[in-house]
């Protein structure tokens, strides 16, 4: 079952990053919804694995290829969805996941039937242009996005891992809030990376990162990290001359403040 979990984890990322890579807002939004469904599949598969006394991990074996057209992205995604079908369990959950995937495949086929959808993908061209933003600010933004997209991915997986193992309802709910918040941040940063032409997968998590032995210590460290992230957002917001972008980082900064409150509830 761990193999199924790993495949689902990879499919979640494949759909999510296809959504980031494609500029068309309608296709982007539909794929993002499908990615969220795939994430829930992953969560439910994880719960089934734990219920049988088994375990899963976050190992991955995948690459994000630098594709240059929408159809290349969609064709690759279709292949991933088809490949996973034989891995699903023969039970109610397996059937539910398969029907979701069939619907996704139908949607992907619809996209492929409309040649006007086959636009160029610029998410991997490494050009790093952002309206009138000067180069030093683009450099700062680039580093911020690499750091923080990894961090949000890391937080989603760590909180999901702990949520799956807690028996405490308060903890369960707070972990869910934190996962939801990080999904939004990852979506925002992933789309910004694509706009800059530097879209890349976050690094794989090592078990030293997500197997938390001391929750209190993890939270104390996590709060310190959130404080640091807030500071980074503030520095970036102050340094960036683009008003819209600056406001966005202020907005993220205030969200980080509330994450600290949420984490304090767990202490």
């Amino acid at each position, binding site marked *: 079952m761990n193999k199924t979990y790993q495949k689902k984890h990879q499919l979640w990322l494949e759909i999510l990053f296809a959504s980031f890579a494609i500029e068309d807002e309608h296709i982007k939004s539909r794929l993002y919804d499908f990615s969220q469904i795939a994430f829930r599949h992953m969560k439910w598969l994880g719960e089934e694995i734990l219920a049988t006394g088994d375990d899963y991990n976050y190992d991955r074996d995948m690459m994000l290829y630098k594709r240059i057209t929408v159809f290349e992205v969609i064709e690759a995604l279709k292949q991933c969805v088809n490949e996973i079908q034989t891995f699903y369990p023969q039970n109610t959950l397996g059937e539910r996941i398969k029907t979701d995937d069939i619907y996704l495949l139908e949607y992907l086929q619809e996209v492929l039937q409309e040649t006007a959808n086959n636009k160029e993908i610029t998410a991997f061209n*490494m050009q790093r*242009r952002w309206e009138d933003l000067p180069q030093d600010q683009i450099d700062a933004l680039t580093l911020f996005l690499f*750091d923080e997209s990894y961090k949000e991915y890391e937080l989603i997986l760590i909180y999901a891992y702990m949520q799956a193992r807690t028996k405490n309802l308060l903890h369960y709910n707070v972990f869910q809030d934190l996962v939801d918040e990080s999904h939004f941040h990852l979506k925002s940063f992933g789309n910004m990376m694509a706009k800059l032409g530097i879209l*890349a997968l976050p*690094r794989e998590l*090592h078990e*030293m990162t997500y197997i938390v032995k001391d929750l209190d210590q993890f939270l104390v460290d996590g709060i310190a990290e959130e404080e640091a992230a807030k500071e980074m957002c503030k520095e970036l917001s102050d340094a960036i001359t683009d008003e819209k972008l600056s406001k966005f980082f202020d907005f993220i900064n205030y969200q980080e403040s509330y994450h600290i409150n949420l984490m304090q509830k767990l202490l």
Partner: protein
Amino acid sequence: MYKDVKMPKGMNPEVLEHLMNPKNYGKLEDDNGIGVALDEKTKEYVIFYILLNDEILQDVSFATNGCQDTVVIGSMFSEMIKNNDINYAKKSIEKMHAKLGEMTPQQKICAELVFTAFIAALKNHDNRKEGIDEELHLLKMKESCEATNMETSHE
């Protein structure tokens, strides 16, 4: 790949390629040495895997929960030492210092985390050869993060 990309001024295309696609990242299944460098204050770590046969580093990999500087340095360093001998690898630490040029104190800490994890992996390899039961070798960084200021422990 990055050689063909015309980059705007400011960020080296080689660095960007390492950021987008870190080399030798992840676990090594058939390793014979694992080292960890841990910054206890920040909880940042680098874990370094080696497959060392007849003094040649046939394969290497690393993973970290650290910042992008750590990733770039780990990616560059692992590429430099892979398929080379131990002496070359040890000298590569000096070469990396030269390649990286002037670094901020934070970047120095990141670089030392990578190099220290590699040294710990070599130590673990030696310990295993001597019959010591040690899954990995851990080196805790001190605030200065200098290779000479380390506390060691076995796990």
